[in-house]
């Protein structure tokens, strides 16, 4: 009956009182974080770069670190796409998470198995794509946005041959309109192909019931956003391996 929880040894006794035990732990952690920050701030100074000179652009001209991911994307996509479309879709993607994520598990506790795909997707999108591009942009990019090893001297006079070609050109297409048509076709094919693959994939991993419950709306939103997200590593691969510049070339947009 009223056996106190303290006397009974329950299978998982992992709770502690907020006050004072949780708070004191939090306080200690805060203390050591403060110590770490203090040591950091005492030893490493914020960099003071050259005096501002509007007539002399620094080389390289880097965005603040939190935007370096976007700046790195500029290598692979044109500014409209990398600077407006993709960032907007990132935010839209974050906004719709509560809508498309119907997994009830994982409230208030850490787990992985219960939310494997959700967590993996997020890790891929944030840690891999976003963070890694920031790391590349900070440490691996030098003057002229050329690639340098982090320990390499930043030679402002380094010249790297630029031999990029558009994908239609690479495939032998020389007519302007045919290339545009091909580009549209390629992009269309990519999206359709991806959606097909995604359908098959959800079916395989989650099952038909889940798909029915999830609904077409959610399926399509998730699919499209994931397609856009995967287009970045896809384009990076095309660029680094085959020197592909653009898939679609039009006077209004290049992708």
């Amino acid at each position, binding site marked *: 009956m009223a056996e106190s929880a303290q006397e009974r040894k*329950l*299978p998982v*006794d992992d709770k*502690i009182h907020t006050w004072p035990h949780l708070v004191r732990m939090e306080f*200690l952690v805060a*203390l050591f974080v403060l110590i770490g920050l*203090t040591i950091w701030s005492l030893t490493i100074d914020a960099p003071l*770069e050259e*005096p501002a000179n*509007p007539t002399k652009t620094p080389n390289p001209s880097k965005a603040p670190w939190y935007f370096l991911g976007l700046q790195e994307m500029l290598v692979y996509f044109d500014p409209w796409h990398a600077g407006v479309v993709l960032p907007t879709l990132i935010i839209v993607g974050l906004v719709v998470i509560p809508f498309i994520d119907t997994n009830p598990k994982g409230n208030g506790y850490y787990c992985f198995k219960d939310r494997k795909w959700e967590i993996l997707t997020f890790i891929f999108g944030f840690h891999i794509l976003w963070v890694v591009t920031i790391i590349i942009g900070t440490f691996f990019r030098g003057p002229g946005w050329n690639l340098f090893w982090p320990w390499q001297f930043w030679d402002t006079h380094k010249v790297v041959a630029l031999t990029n070609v558009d994908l239609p050109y690479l495939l032998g297409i020389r007519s302007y309109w045919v290339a545009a048509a091909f580009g549209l076709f390629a992009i269309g094919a990519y999206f359709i192909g991806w959606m097909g693959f995604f359908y098959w994939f959800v079916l395989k991993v989650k099952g038909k019931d889940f798909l029915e419950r999830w609904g077409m709306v959610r399926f399509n939103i998730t699919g499209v956003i994931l397609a856009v997200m995967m287009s970045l590593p896809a384009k990076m691969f095309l660029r680094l391996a085959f020197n592909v510049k653009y898939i679609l070339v039009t006077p209004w947009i290049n992708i």
Partner: protein
Amino acid sequence: MAERGVDQKEEKKSYGSVFVLGAGILAALSLWAFLDDNITRRPWKGFQAKFYRLDYNKAQAAYDEEDKKLQADDKYKELSQKLAAFQASLADGEVGKKLNSQIAEEARVTVKFQEADQKVKDVKSELEEAWYEHDHAVQQKRKIEPYLEVIAALDKKKAVLDKELEPIREKRNQLKDEIKKIQSGAKEIETELVKMTGERDKWIRVMENVTFKLGPFTFPKIPKIQQVSLDEFDRNRFDQPVARVDRCQTCHLAINRPGFEKEANPYKTHPRREVLLADSAHSPDKIGCTGCHEGQGMAVNGVKQAHGDVHLWEFPLLRGAKVQSSCTSCHQDVQKFAEDAPLLAEGQRLFEQVGCTGCHLVKGYENIPKIAPSLKKISAKVDPGWMVRWIENPHKFRQRTRMPNFDLKPDDALAVAAYIWSQSKEEADQWTQTHPAPAGFREGDPNDIAKGKKLVETIGCKGCHGFADGEFSTPLGKSKDLVPNLKDIAAKVVGPQWIYHWIKNPRGFEPETRMPSLRLSDDEALSITNYLMSLGGRPDPVAGIQEKLADAKNIKRGEVLVRKWGCFGCHDIKGMEKESRIGAELTTFGSKTVEELGFGNRTDVKHTWDDWTYFKLKTPRGYATERIEQLMPQFNLHDDDIKALRTLLGGFRERKVGQRYLADQGLRVQQVVEGRRLMQQYNCVGCHEIEKQGGFVRKYYQENVALAPPPLNGQGEKVQSSWFYSFLKSPTTLRPWLEIRMPTFGFSDEHTTQLVNYFNGLSKVEQPYHYIDDRKFPAENLEAAKILASAEYFNCFSCHVQGGKNPEGPKEGWAPDLAMARQRLNPNWIIKWLKDPQKIQPGAKMPSFYPGGPDNILGGKEDRQIEALRDYLMSIGRGAAPAAAAAPQVPAKAKPAK
């Protein structure tokens, strides 16, 4: 699901040790942060503290030394004893007693005084009231008699009281005076002592300056940032004026204090402090430090940071001679700083005279004329074979020539020669036809040659030209000749015909030439031509040279080459007179960062602006690569000249200093700068000493300096501008004993005006024009002066030419014609000259007659005598030469007045 319980073990754990550890670390970190912030990151505090200690110790040592001297001084000891005695007496001796009694007495009398005074005051008050009542009654038209009575009574009372008050007041004042007198009994002694201890006690003030007292304790002064804020010193990239802040004096505390010359930096006094940091020059409080020295003036968190020796600060500290580069940021006229900024002055001279502006545009130097001879009629002047050889490598023929070596291949040199030859043929042939070979030319006649040589040595050719190896007049750097050395002129020219006509009338061949005419007679010109044709032997003929030069293919190729190499930058070539410069603009070359300089394939050059520029000037094509050609030719400059040029180039910066900090603004400075350029171009200093420099031809007159051209220091002040203008246009003989001639340069009106303005500017002449009014000369003055000038007294005409009359004795002993004074000399200058000629021209033959004028002329007053002489000189220039002065009447010996 089972209910999850509380983790007892976890809750029982005590994290006290972790907490203590963390708190301890954080406390230590706080301490570290405090020290870091206040000490480690503020090294200037340490510097200041060290300086205050240094200053204190020095002051203390000086104080002790002075004190020792004082203690050894008998007078001081005596006075101190006297003062001590007096003060002792004042304290409790005789004097003290007297003083105290007087003070007591004064106190008593004061009380009495106050009482009496109060009574008077009361009566006065009552009187005021009574008068009011009276006035009121008048206004009310009542009877005033009763009031008048009251007033009268009060008046009487007041009179009585006043009479009582007076003696008390007197007594009181008397006592006060006495007290004062007693107290200041030692005043004289004290003043004496203060005078004696002045030297010693001033060190106390210095010590007080660097400490502060807190009760009985003395602490070193608290360090404080010393900064100078200069409003509108810089202009930012949007051309808005912005302030600049210099904090250099935070560590360099003694920079503007004498006495620290021997200390190590940062406590050292600035070199030549009294001159360079004077208020009229660069007081640090008005100009700051970084204006000249660059560096990061606002940084104080470290030596390297403050000196700007950090990555990304574009203006590191300028050390040593490099600081001279900064002068041009504010000063227009840098030649006058030949003492303080010798590298810069020399660099500017070299820049203007070696011909850099022929290829490179620099703002401020756009109007430097082309430095090389015109090539428009060159085929009438030089041997064709010689010309090709010269173009190929000028230094082989004349090592010190200003023309650089373009390192052309023989084919290219021929092509260039062909083009230039073809462009000049027409005009040259015309000139040759109208200037035939002179009659009476005795080629090879040794007597004639000797005569020519003598002429060359005496009439002034050596003021510009050298005629043997290593001979030159005005130096240009260490490796160049300003004017061609003629030691092998015969190997260059086409023949004696050209030389003859050239030396007779240079501008007849080249209208813009610097070479003047020495007004040679035909005979003289023939002899000199003969002499010159004996120097160097005739040039070797080159087979088929005329055909090669006339070959159309060569000419066409030559034109392309001439356009490529930019010959027209220095030479006038027909058809290319207005071509623009082919080199890079250097207006802001000094602001180039290292990233903007190309080092080519060279690995031996350090990556600094200084090294790049040095090696560029030393081996101009050294930075060429397999794909990039360099056009700049080799000037063969001496290392010192390169360093001087580099100093000037370092001053070609982007920076614009605020208007109010600029020096040398105004028309006068501009005229001096402009005129000086012209003066250097025509090499006036080859013969004349100007601005205390030059007169290089005088080295040939060391035996008798009187035979050398006169120095022109202070010329603007000395001569009348209109006379000077005429003289420069057409020189006349001023000094008949001179064999060396002032040449006729043929200056344009503009140039003549510029030269006159130059000298006037140097002497700061306010009014260049004078009107001599004969009626203003008092007759008394003229009479007195005639006597003074006579043989009885100063005997001026013993040495001075007098119109047409020459003095006795050999020519070397003569002095200028005084009849010219009216037209030529500035009347105010004559006064100065007569007062002390040796001050104006040290070593002049004219002796000082004053002080030492005779007592019996014009009352012995020397100023009046000088004025009289001046008036006399101004009057004797009228019309024809005056007759010899009549026998003067010596006045009777005046009584020894004064």
